[in-house]
């Protein structure tokens, strides 16, 4: 486990470039996005590569020390090894931000702007409403609804007093 991790730092790039040899024309260059990438994700705790690919001399000697007994490592060295492999700890990557406030504010702003657009449309784009919306046409409509006893149990006509020809109190 330790050996494979140490190897992966040095060996991976060499392996992937050597695979791309093309018929005598030399080694093809592999773009960065085609190589395994590092990512901080809660649901995938062990990324494909370590965070720090190019170790400094100090880090290299630390990696050599890691091959021995881990009891010999001090706490600072353990943390340094962790930081070589990982960018953010779980606590750091999981912390929330205040972004939601901006998002909610933006949402409200654009809903308000849409309201203005709709008002303008109502005034300058749409034609007049049909004649069926006029006052006495609507009165005749409602009278007809009561005459045919629409929703007489719990709905419209249930609220009309047919004896006294008025709405029930």
């Amino acid at each position, binding site marked *: 486990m330790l050996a494979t991790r140490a190897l992966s730092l040095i060996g991976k790039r060499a392996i992937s470039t050597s695979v791309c040899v093309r018929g005598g024309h030399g080694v093809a260059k592999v773009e960065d996005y085609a190589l395994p990438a590092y990512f901080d994700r809660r649901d995938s705790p062990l990324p494909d590569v370590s965070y720090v690919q190019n170790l400094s001399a100090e880090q290299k000697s630390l990696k050599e020390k890691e091959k021995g007994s881990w009891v010999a490592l001090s706490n600072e060295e353990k943390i340094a090894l962790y930081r070589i492999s990982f960018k953010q700890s779980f606590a750091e990557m999981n912390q929330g931000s205040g972004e939601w406030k901006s998002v909610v504010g933006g949402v409200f702003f654009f809903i308000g702007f849409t309201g203005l657009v709709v008002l303008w449309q109502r005034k300058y784009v749409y034609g007049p409403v049909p004649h069926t919306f006029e006052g006495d046409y609507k009165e005749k409509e409602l009278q*007809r609804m009561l005459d*045919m006893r629409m929703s007489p149990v*719990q709905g419209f006509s249930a609220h009309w007093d047919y004896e006294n020809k008025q709405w029930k109190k």
Partner: protein
Amino acid sequence: MSLPKPMMRGLLAKRLRFHLPIAFTLALTAAIAFKYTVTEPKKRAYADFYKQYDAVKEFNAMREAGIFESVQPTGK
């Protein structure tokens, strides 16, 4: 650095032990509340309406109001 070892197993089971009874209780409560605030009053309203319902009387009233096309009001 001697932190206690964190919980490694049984995390889902622990969560379910806590949340499932609550979920079932809430669902049951919602169903019972809906039954007694909506469906029972509705059933009673319909039963009461039809207890005193005279279909012929209603038909004649509607006829006089002139909403039918197959029968005219008695005046004509």
